[in-house]
């Protein structure tokens, strides 16, 4: 294999852990990734050496915490090729980023009769916030998928209208693995003068993403899916749009001057960051980006593809294994069902083999209904996964059949 997963595994302390006396085969990185020592140490070092509340005073620790926080922002800006670090807002996770856009962009700018164009493969994070707009008469429209799990671009072209004010699409589906042609979708959206939002939660951890190249207006992603700590995420936005937006969270740090009844907002990006910032999260995300950059996002993508090809070969041999699509998409995400066994029971029996996979609705209930499924099992791969782990997965699935007498 091109990428030496065994070597990387050594950096992840959790892989020393045994479950049911077997080495952990963590095949659920699309939910959340494991953390390398480098990220854990960065957090530890921050609290042991530099911790202070940034921006607030001028003693040495405060100066250091401020620099650490703002340097992390610069690193993120470079990682996704943003024009300026002003365009990087630290948030909790992708969900929060979408809420900022729903509350501070959509609620301020959309009116009755306007439309928001989404796709049927969206994660709840990119559906539920927009439903808020319905009470003011904004309509949500959902582009369907083709039979091979790709997005129906023709339909998208038909559904977009002069009333479509926002087009918000996932870059990569967490269920199908589909990588959407967001550059093309962005072109269509902008030709239509719609704001174009990309849910990057699955793409940014697993492939190179360049906001200048995509020309998206907003991009949201979560640190915890890309080796970083929980509770740090990013909302990228073009600065001219962010400048015009109302803030979302209000309070300290996002202001320049507070009078009893009015307030002058702070400059970008701080206008959108209220209260004590998450320096720890930023430090951890920064270390995660260093790690990913050293490995190389293209290498990671290739590795996941190799594992996907190997897995489909191996799993297709198992009785009752039904992938959601016939394995045409090889992007590190394999969603499937086992005939006669519910995905929950599949996941439970696999745990006996220390194999961790996701089961359930994947926070994509509309897509599940579209697929005619109530539940699904998903194995997802990352830089630290190996073919041996896929062998163990296969072994576990045989046991599933045995228990359920399939």
């Amino acid at each position, binding site marked *: 294999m091109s990428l030496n997963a065994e070597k990387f595994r050594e950096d992840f302390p959790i892989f020393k852990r045994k479950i049911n006396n077997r080495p952990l085969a963590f095949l659920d990185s699309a939910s959340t990734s494991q953390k390398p020592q480098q990220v854990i140490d960065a957090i530890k070092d921050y609290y042991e050496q530099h911790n202070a509340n940034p921006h607030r005073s001028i003693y040495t620790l405060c100066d250091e915490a401020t620099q650490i926080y703002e340097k992390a922002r610069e690193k993120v800006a470079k990682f996704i090729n943003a024009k300026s670090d002003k365009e990087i807002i630290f948030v909790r996770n992708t969900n929060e980023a979408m809420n900022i856009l729903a509350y501070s962009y959509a609620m301020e700018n959309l009116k009755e009769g306007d439309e928001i164009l989404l796709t049927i493969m969206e994660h709840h994070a990119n559906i539920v916030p927009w439903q808020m707009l319905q009470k003011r008469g904004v309509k949500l429209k959902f582009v369907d998928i083709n039979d091979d799990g790709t997005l129906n671009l023709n339909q998208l072209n038909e559904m977009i209208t002069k009333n479509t004010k926002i087009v918000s699409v996932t870059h990569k589906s967490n269920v199908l693995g589909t990588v959407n042609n967001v550059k093309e979708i962005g072109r269509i959206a902008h030709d239509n003068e719609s704001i174009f939002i990309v849910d990057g939660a699955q793409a940014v951890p697993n492939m190179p993403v360049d906001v200048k190249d995509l020309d998206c207006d907003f991009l949201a992603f979560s640190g915890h899916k890309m080796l970083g700590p929980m509770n740090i995420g990013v909302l990228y936005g073009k600065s001219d749009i962010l400048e015009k937006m109302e803030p979302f969270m209000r309070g300290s740090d996002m202001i320049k001057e507070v009078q009893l009844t009015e307030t002058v907002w702070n400059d970008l990006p701080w206008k959108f960051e209220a209260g004590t910032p998450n320096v720890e999260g930023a430090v951890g995300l920064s270390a995660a980006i260093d790690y990913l950059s050293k490995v190389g996002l293209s290498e990671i993508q290739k590795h996941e593809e190799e594992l996907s090809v190997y897995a489909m070969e191996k799993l297709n041999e198992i009785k009752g294994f039904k992938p959601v699509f016939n394995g045409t998409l090889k992007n590190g995400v394999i969603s499937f069902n086992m005939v006669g066994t519910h995905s929950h*029971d599949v996941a439970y029996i696999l*745990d006996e083999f220390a194999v961790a996979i996701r089961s359930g609705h994947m926070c994509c209930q509309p897509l599940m209904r579209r697929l005619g499924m109530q539940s699904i099992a998903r194995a997802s791969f990352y830089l630290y996964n190996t073919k041996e782990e896929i062998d163990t997965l296969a072994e576990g699935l045989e*046991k599933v059949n045995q228990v359920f007498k399939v």
Partner: protein
Amino acid sequence: MNSEIYRETILEHYANPVNAGDIPDADATARDFNPSCGDVVEIQAKFSDGIVKDIKFRGEGCAISQSSVDILLGIVKNKTIAEVENFTTEDFLEILGIELSPLRLKCALLGLNTLKTAVHTYLTRV
């Protein structure tokens, strides 16, 4: 070992539930989800003289959630409402007799929670 929870009875109730179905003139209906996995159970019940005369469910989900509700309805049918109200989680788990991890516990208890809601709905209405 994990797979030991799939006892013969569990698999049997899962494959061939005896209390699945609808009650067209039900006195109370309740529906609940397990938000993490999407498992769903809907219970319909008919009461008379303070007794659970008939009770059925519809549901979608794993072997544990679906067999548990099927077993549960078998237990409570023809019991008094008071008995159902006093029937605890512990009572039910003892009858199930399988060892469950905390998240699997949610599967096993989805039916019981839904049942309690159905009874509550009935009692607050009559």
